[in-house]
Structure formats: C-alpha cells, structure tokens
C-alpha cells in the first residue's frame, strides 16, 4: 500500500532509533505527550517503546473522542434510540462504551432499538432519504478531522430539504484540550508533571493546519511537532522534538508535510464555520468542564439539531471513584498507577475513559504493553466485576522497564536484529 508501507519500514526504524538514542542527552529526560489516540495506537501496535532510549517517555494524551465522551451523552444517545420508530446512526466506535445502568448502545440494539453502524455521515443522510417516515438521528463524535464530514451531511440534508434528519453533535476541539492540560495545576504551577513537548495530531492538522499550535509553542514555551500517522512519522517527530529541546527551541514543526500545511483545508474549515459555533463549555470525561472546547449546531440549522428537536437534557454522570483517568489523561499518572487497572478495569469491563476505546492509554497498555509489567494480574478470560485473583498492588514505576521485558523469559527474537 503506497504511502503506508514505506512509512513502516523496519530498516529505517532502526536508523531513526539510533539517531534518537544518539541525540537524546543522558543527563535529562524527555517527556513527550502524543495528543492523538491514533498516535497512541501506533506507538503500542508497533512496539515503539522498545526502540526508544529509557529517558524518552511517551505520555498518552486525551485525543480520543470516544474516550472523552461523557457517559451522560451516551445516555442521551441511548434515550434517542429508544424513541419508537427512531433510527440512530453511529460510528461503530461508540457501540460498546458502557453508559449508565450497565447499558450501552450495543445492548440497547440487542433489546430492539434500531441502531445502525455506519462508516460515513453520508450513510446517515441516505438512510434518512430511504426512510422518509422514520426519524433518523446521526450520533456525531470526533475531533476536527471528523467534524467537516458532519457539516457536509447537514448541508446536504438542508439542500435536500429533509424533514426527518438531525444530528446529535458531540464534536470537540483539540487546541482547547491541549490548553486544558497545560493549564492544569500540576503542569503550570507545581511543575510536577514534566511535559516537555507535544506530538501534534496528524489528521486533525490536515484540516486546521499547523498554525493553531503556534500559540502553545509561544505561550507555554513547549515545542510541537505535527506527525503523520505511521510509526516512522512518530519516530521522526520524536527526533525533531529531542533536537528542539536540546537546542532550547519551542517551535511548531511539521513532520507530516505530505498532508499538512500551515493553513490546512480552507474549504473544510469554511464549511464547519458555516454550520457550527462554539459551546461556552462542554464536559470531557476525565477532564471535567472545558471552556470553548466543543461545537454546537448554529440556529440557522436548528432543524437538524437533535438537541433542539428532541429537547435533550444532559445529566452529568460521575466516574467510579477509583478511576484515575482524569490524572492519566493529563499525564500525571500512568495506567499502572491506577488501583483498578487490569483487575476490575479491563477492555472487557472498562471503568473509565482510558480503557473504553483501544486508543485510550489504559486500553493500549493493557492490550499491547502490559506483558512488560511484572506485577499486573493477567486475566485471559473476561472477569466479572468482582476481582477473582490478586497479586499485590500494581507498582507505580514506569510502564516499561528500560531495555526489554523482564517478566518473560523469552529468547530475544530481536527487537534490534
């Protein structure tokens, strides 16, 4: 696959790994946050940690729109789907997220709600056209990458004068989330979270461009490197961040030049501005209320706004007290610091946002990385909520011991062949 396979080349990876190891000064640590869940996924899936020196730490940020979607909003979606005759169209990602009372969209579907998984917002419009006497609602989630497709759907619905189509809008904004992290007490005042730089999201940036990150680099004096989606892109971005930090620079650099420009996609941005406006505040699961961080549909398009149409009221549902997601999303804690990680809270039974989708920090670590932790209990079969076996408290140490896996006596089939 062109423009995919070349960016996954193992040879080039080894070269970049040497370069990073060489340039990372042993006297300091480099604490880098990859904001985007897709980057978290790439780091886990390709075992990138193995290729980084021990003083380069990757912190997983909150850039996973499914993870940060509050339980209360899923409850709203389930309530919509329960309305007789209503068809709820959703991306598959939301189906398994646990909502209140042990339910989920998947379970609601099993109980007879007409919930349809779609690949594209265009499918939702088509379903509305094909079912003129049914109400159709599109459950829209996502960051700036996914927002323009929703805008297109609404514009199309208007052009087609559809009277049975609306959107339940949960689109959120990246820069606001980054601000929230940098403004958190621990980072700003206490300096207890060393957060030295950011890997900027790949596809969000194709839409918004690299310009919006310049504010962070200047205001907070932290470098940002926008990285493509493939593992080599991520490694190159890490190298560029290491260099910036070594040289005392705090700039926005673009590694993903093949798809990102400074200004982004003007057409997409214009369409989004036409259809949406900022909400004063929006709750993010794990982060709480974040100002100017989300979008709602403009009054001009109110006919297509499910919140208007169905008078939806939002009720905030707090997370389990033991859940450390808020701290993990801000980079203050690691998955293994959480008491319920891997025991009660697993991908089968996610307690908080970080475990809910495969890109959340906890899910990624559980699925791909926990074999490197020595003290975490492994649950090969789905556990009921009660803990069935225990092996002492998880250690607060970093996720991966330097070098290789201590837990497994495996012949070294070769991280560095």
């Amino acid at each position: 696959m062109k423009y995919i396979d070349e960016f996954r080349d193992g040879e080039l990876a080894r070269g970049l790994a040497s370069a990073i190891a060489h340039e990372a000064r042993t006297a300091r640590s480099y604490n880098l946050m990859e904001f985007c869940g897709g980057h978290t996924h790439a780091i886990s899936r390709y075992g990138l940690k193995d290729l980084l020196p021990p003083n380069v730490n990757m912190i997983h940020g909150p850039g996973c729109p499914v993870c940060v979607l509050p339980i209360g909003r899923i409850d709203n979606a389930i309530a919509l789907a329960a309305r007789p005759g209503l068809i709820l169209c959703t991306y598959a990602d939301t189906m398994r997220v646990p909502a209140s009372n042990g339910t989920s969209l998947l379970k609601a579907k099993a109980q007879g709600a007409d919930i349809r998984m779609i690949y594209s917002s265009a499918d939702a419009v088509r379903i509305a056209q094909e079912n003129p006497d049914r109400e159709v609602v599109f459950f829209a989630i996502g960051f700036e990458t996914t927002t323009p497709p929703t805008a297109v759907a609404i514009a199309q619905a208007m052009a087609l004068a559809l009277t049975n189509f609306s959107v339940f809008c949960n689109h959120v904004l990246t820069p606001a989330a980054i601000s929230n992290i940098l403004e958190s007490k621990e980072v700003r005042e206490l300096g207890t979270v060393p957060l030295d730089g950011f890997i900027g999201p790949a596809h969000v940036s194709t839409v918004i461009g690299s310009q919006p990150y310049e504010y962070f680099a200047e205001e907070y004096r932290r470098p940002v490197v926008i990285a493509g989606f493939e593992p080599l892109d991520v490694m190159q971005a890490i190298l560029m961040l290491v260099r910036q930090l070594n040289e005392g620079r705090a700039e926005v650099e673009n590694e993903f030049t093949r798809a990102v420009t400074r200004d982004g996609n003007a057409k997409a941005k214009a369409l989004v501005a036409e259809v949406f406006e900022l909400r004063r505040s929006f709750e993010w699961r794990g982060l709480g209320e974040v100002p100017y961080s989300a979008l709602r549909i403009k009054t001009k398009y109110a006919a297509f706004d499910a919140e208007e149409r169905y008078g939806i009221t939002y009720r905030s549902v707090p997370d389990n007290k033991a859940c450390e997601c808020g701290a993990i999303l801000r980079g203050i804690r690691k998955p293994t610091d959480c008491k319920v990680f891997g025991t009660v809270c697993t991908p089968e039974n996610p307690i908080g946002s970080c475990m809910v989708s495969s890109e959340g920090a906890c899910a990624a670590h559980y699925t791909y990385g926990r074999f490197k932790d020595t003290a975490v209990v492994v649950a090969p079969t789905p556990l009921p909520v009660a803990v069935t076996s225990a092996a002492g408290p998880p250690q607060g140490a970093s996720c991966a011991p330097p070098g290789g896996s201590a837990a497994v006596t495996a012949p070294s089939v070769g991280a560095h062949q």
Partner: protein
Amino acid sequence: MTAVRNGYIRPVDFKHGHIDMTHGGGGRAMAQLIDELFMRAFDNEWLRQANDQAAFAIGAGRMVMATDSHVVSPLFFPGGDIGCLSVHGTINDVAMSGAVPLYLSAGFILEEGFPLADLKRIVESMATAARDARVPVITGDTKVVERGKGDGVFITTTGVGMVPAGIAISGDAARPGDRILVSGTMGDHGVAIMSLRENLTFETTIRSDTAALHGLVAAMIAAVPGIHCLRDPTRGGLATTLNELASQSGCGMVIAEKRIPVNGQVNAACEFLGLDPLYVANEGKLVAVCPAADADALLAAMRAHPLGEDAANIGEVIDDPHHFVQMDTSFGGRRVVDWLTGEQLPRIC
C-alpha cells in the same frame, strides 16, 4: 423440471414459493419439501431409507464427534454461503483432532417466509460441499418458526469421525520449543463478510476462504504423526486461537508479524476499516503446533497441498507463566497479542 412424485398434487415451487408453517408441521407439505429438496440434493443410501435415523458400522478405535450451529449473515457471500460453510465448519472441527470425518447430520430451523429459492441454493451448496469432501449428510431435521423468530435460516451440523491409531492431537499438548505454523493467509473470511455489511461495501470483491480441511490434515499427519495441536482460527481469528492454545497448554508464544501471511487486499480492507487481520475470522485455514524437529517436514507437506500453498512457520512456543502471546512487529518492537474483546468492530478513531 422437477418431476412430481406419487401422492403430491404439484411440485414444490422453488422459484417463487416461501416457507410457511405447514413445512414444519410433519404433514404432507413437509414430507414433500424434504423429498424434493433435501433427499434429492443429498441423495445417499441412508437418506433413501427414509428413516428418522441413520445406522452405520465403524471399526474399532477412538471416535470423534463435533457440532456447530451456523447463523451467519449475510447468507450468501463471495466464496460461499451458509450451506457450504456449515459443512466445512463441522468437517474441520472433526478434522482438528486428527480424525477422518465420516458422516454428517444437518438440522435446519427455517423462518416462516424464507424464500424457497434461497433454501434450494443453500441446500444444493451443502450437498456439493459434502460430495466434494466425501462426507455424506446421512440424517437431518427441519423445523419452522414464526416470522420474526429466526434470521431466515439457522443450520446445525454434527459430524463424526475416527481418529487413526497413534494420533494424540489436543489443545493442551503444546510444549516450549514447539513451532507454530499456519496453513495460509489470515483474515479472508471475516473481511469478506464484513465488507458485505450495509454501509461498509467495497467495490472490490474479497472472497471467503471457506473450505474443508480434512484432506490437508491427512497429508500433514502422514508427514508428521507427532503433531501436538491443530485448530482452525474461526471467530476471533488467529490471535484468539493462539491465546486459547497457550492458555490450555500452559505456555506462552512468540510469533513474528512479518511471517504471518495476509492477502494484500485483506490488509488494505483492514486499513480502511481499522481492523486487525489477526482477529478476523478464517474458515479454511488451520494452525498447527509441532515439535521443532518436525517443523520443516510439516511445512513442506502443507505447502504441497492446494489448501496449504501459503503455509508459513510463524513462531514458537515458549515457557511463560503468564501465557502471553507476544509478537515481534515487522517494525522491530515487541508487543502482546491479547484475547479479543467482544466482536471486532470497524472504527473511525
């Protein structure tokens, strides 16, 4: 042109007819359907006796029995349908013990309103699959449920077979040092099915790999009688099967991503949908675990068979109290290949 049997007023209308409650009632309508469709399609000495059971003699030895219910949707897909899938699936389950599959039974639950044209197509596909595999369907049953209570058709097949002497293949037999082999490309069936789902269609056709594997298994056992484990990675894919074997055998595994064969189109479809081919179902592939010394011979035997042309040696069994399945990624890092969490769904994130 179907001939009309004595006692029937007119032949079953397979072009335009539908299943109705009389077809499950035990009366003439049901007898006629069984006669004109099932008996005619499967046609063998047992069915011709028209009993409620089939009698057969077998030699002394260990028998194996396996059963599978098939509820796949869509019923028809490139490369197969629920009919041949149900025949292959049970033959394969029997074959994974090393047994030679001998006979099959088939039970149908039909939904009122199900088109007879579709039923005929399914049954004839089953009959062809059974004939090609040389494993006859010797007895069966049909029931009809009211409209809305079934997904068109559910098929349950049960198979029996005989294990040759000296063969002891079992999921708990893997030992540290053993090699892990797969018989071909991973993920074909699941992607073929998923890409037919509404709203996920591709313009390109990806075909299911559904196939009966007992011929391949026989060739493998002839070459290496000491195979430790055999399993077909159906639901949950290769990753789930390896985790099962690791767990049952009480060991760990290490595999190499670049050695796992995946069809280029399947890979690309997975990229589009955000799926991992390791977790996608296969219906015509198997995983084998054998002693290291036998790996080359086993691989050669597999590659010599049409259903094993793309066979590969993908890793080894190791000592690991956690029973992890680890993978060296083609990128150079190592990660765990965990159990599947629920059904793998496409993602946008």
